């Protein structure tokens, strides 16, 4: 296998970055309808395959890119979701064009941006340089901003503008944090590029000035935390999810949040490697818990189905951040697992929601009723998806929540009280909405759905399998990462 890879004229790592970049340019440049979607899918698939090869063979260090156990998790997951989403978006966008919400011009723009986004995120994940990572994340933000605003409706522009302003401030804070990290590293490592290279930084972290790192982490936490969507920095997230095209909502929840989280984790590792620093754990745990409970309450008054699930993304990101904040192999393992499961589940839910919105011609919860009767397949998939996201077995999220809650309770019983409280509150809200949407007498217009269920079903199947059985290699690998995260 490795030998075959050796035959490739290029390193897979570069391909993971290059393919989307080229595809972006190509798609932006060329007009065309049908095959642009196909090209989009193809490029995403290729990227995904390239990412898979990273599992088999790691490129040697050096250069701007690097691969280690941690970011491989994110890259593979991200490219996979990117691929499935592109499949979904093909049919979704086609429908949007049929009903005239989008024009062919938009189509070029959309696909171009889609690949640009993929490029930016992969770059952010693979970059071996905190400055480069920062640039990538900013790029990702900009592209998503443009995509969110694509419908040009009043509400869409509202959302995009909000996202843009808050995002930029976040970026600025993150940059300042990055500069501070450099300043902390520079005395120990010396000037220049080396002082911004991950591998070097982590190796040398013990020699850095701890106080400076503390301050830096505050800025990074807030900066990248804005992207993760932690309360109280979350404001952009619900509207951006609700107003953009649904595939973008799926990408946002499934990928972008993870990329930001990945950045946070990197810096957490940096601080963890330095004994003198104030442990970043409590800060993350607090913000995570806050987001969890806050989102749980916000779920109750939602009238828009996509916004509902956007808030549930905030909730789960909070939970993941909390888990990583708790630290320790078990909690970290749970955090990684939870993040993975959440990406899959949430994107699946958004696939379902997109098709529902197209079938019912509305996103208003009040006008969606009795789906299990009018669209059995959609309805039941939504039920399964929500069951999964609510943490019901035998689906994957239950396992991670099980680990998070029980390990938390065993270590800090008092912390578990708000945790469980938040979980129950959120659960109540989700089930309440679900039983209205999925059951009861169907209302309103309802058209048959022609889009393919494949991506959704695939994701749910994965989540179900993971809930029952995790392949040992994956487990070993996650556990290694968990120990890496300390």
């Amino acid at each position, binding site marked *: 296998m490795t030998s075959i890879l050796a035959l490739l004229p290029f390193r897979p790592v570069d391909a993971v970055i290059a393919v989307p970049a080229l595809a972006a340019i190509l798609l932006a440049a060329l007009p065309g309808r049908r095959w642009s979607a196909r090209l989009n899918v193809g490029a995403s698939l290729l990227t995904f395959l390239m990412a898979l090869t990273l599992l088999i063979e790691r490129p040697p260090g050096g250069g701007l890119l690097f691969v280690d156990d941690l970011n491989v998790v994110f890259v593979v997951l991200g490219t996979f979701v990117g691929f499935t989403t592109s499949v979904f978006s093909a049919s979704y966008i086609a429908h949007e064009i049929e009903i005239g919400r989008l024009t062919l011009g938009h189509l070029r723009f959309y696909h171009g941006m889609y690949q640009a986004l993929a490029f930016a995120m992969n770059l952010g994940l693979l970059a071996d*340089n905190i*400055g*480069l990572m*920062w*640039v990538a994340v*900013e790029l990702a933000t*900009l592209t998503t901003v*443009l995509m969110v*605003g694509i419908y*040009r409706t*009043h*509400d869409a*522009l*509202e*959302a*995009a*503008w*909000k996202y*843009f*302003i808050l995002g*930029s*401030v976040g*970026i*600025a804070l993150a*940059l*300042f944090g990055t*500069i*501070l990290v*450099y*300043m*902390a590293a*520079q*005395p120990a490592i010396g*000037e*220049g*590029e080396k*002082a*911004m290279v991950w591998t070097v930084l982590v190796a040398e972290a013990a020699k850095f*000035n701890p*106080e*400076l790192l*503390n*301050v830096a982490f505050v800025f990074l936490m807030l900066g990248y935390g804005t992207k993760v969507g932690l309360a109280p920095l979350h404001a952009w997230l619900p*509207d951006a999810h609700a107003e953009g095209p649904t595939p973008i909502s799926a990408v946002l929840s499934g990928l972008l949040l993870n990329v930001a989280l990945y950045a946070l984790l990197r810096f957490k590792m940096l601080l963890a490697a330095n004994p003198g620093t104030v442990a970043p754990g409590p800060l993350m745990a607090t913000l995570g818990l806050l987001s969890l409970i806050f989102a749980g309450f916000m779920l109750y008054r*939602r*009238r*828009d189905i996509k*916004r509902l699930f956007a808030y549930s993304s905030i909730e789960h990101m909070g939970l993941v951040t909390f888990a990583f904040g708790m630290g320790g192999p078990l909690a970290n393992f749970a955090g990684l697992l939870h993040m993975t499961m959440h990406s899959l589940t949430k994107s699946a839910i958004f696939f379902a929601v997109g098709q529902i919105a197209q079938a019912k011609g509305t*996103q*208003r919860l009040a006008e969606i009723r009795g789906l299990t009767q009018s669209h059995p397949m959609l309805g039941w998939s939504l039920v399964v998806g929500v069951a999964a996201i609510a943490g019901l077995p035998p689906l994957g999220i239950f396992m991670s929540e099980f680990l998070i809650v029980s390990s938390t309770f065993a270590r800090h019983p008092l912390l578990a009280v708000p945790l469980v409280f938040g979980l129950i509150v959120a659960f109540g809200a989700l089930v309440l909405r679900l039983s209205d949407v999925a059951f009861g007498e169907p209302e309103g217009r309802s058209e048959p759905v022609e889009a393919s269920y494949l991506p959704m079903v695939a994701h749910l199947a994965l989540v179900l399998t993971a809930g029952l059985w995790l392949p040992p290699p994956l487990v070993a690998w996650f556990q290694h990462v968990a120990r890496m995260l300390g």
Partner: protein
Amino acid sequence: MGGFALDLAHLLAGGMVLVSFMLLYQNRMFGLLNVFALHAVVLTASVAWQAFIQQAPHLYVTAAIALVLKAIVIPLALRRMVVRLEIHRSIETVGGIGLTMLMGIALVALSMMVMLQAAADADPLAREDVALALSVILLGLLMMVTRYNAVSQIIGFMSLENGLILAAAGAKGMPLVVEISIAFSVLVAFIVIGVFLFRIRERFDSVDTHALDDYREGRQ
């Protein structure tokens, strides 16, 4: 030389803080734009001086960008926009100028407290520099939150970003400063002449973010 270099660097950086206060103090649109131009000029000077004392030629590029873009192009663009959109009236502030000034002073104190004790053993040049940069950033943020009007928010954001450039320049031998400053200029360009103001102008007859902000879920 060293002592003088240090003092001048401080002078310029401190100058930026001062100009930030002037920004906070402004309540006329055009005045705001002029002061911002000044802010950019001081930044240019300070970055250039850093380039000189660090023997880091690439910083000159950053300085140039700052000068051209921030001190000339953007203020002019904004001015034209202000004229075109007829929003050259006084700026409404949250809680009055005086209060914001006071808060600003508190923020400067805070940033000093944080940075000086944090970066105690970093080399003094970088340390003071970054401390002042932090206060510029906080002041910029403060401006963004205490101004209702989009243009002044944009200016707040840009002053914040100037603070970042200052910090980046102050960090000895920091790579990518140029790239970062370019990236940021792109960002700012987006904000200023970007899609949104046009869209917004098409759809609303003011860029007053009130119009943008009264976003209600219930309305859909």
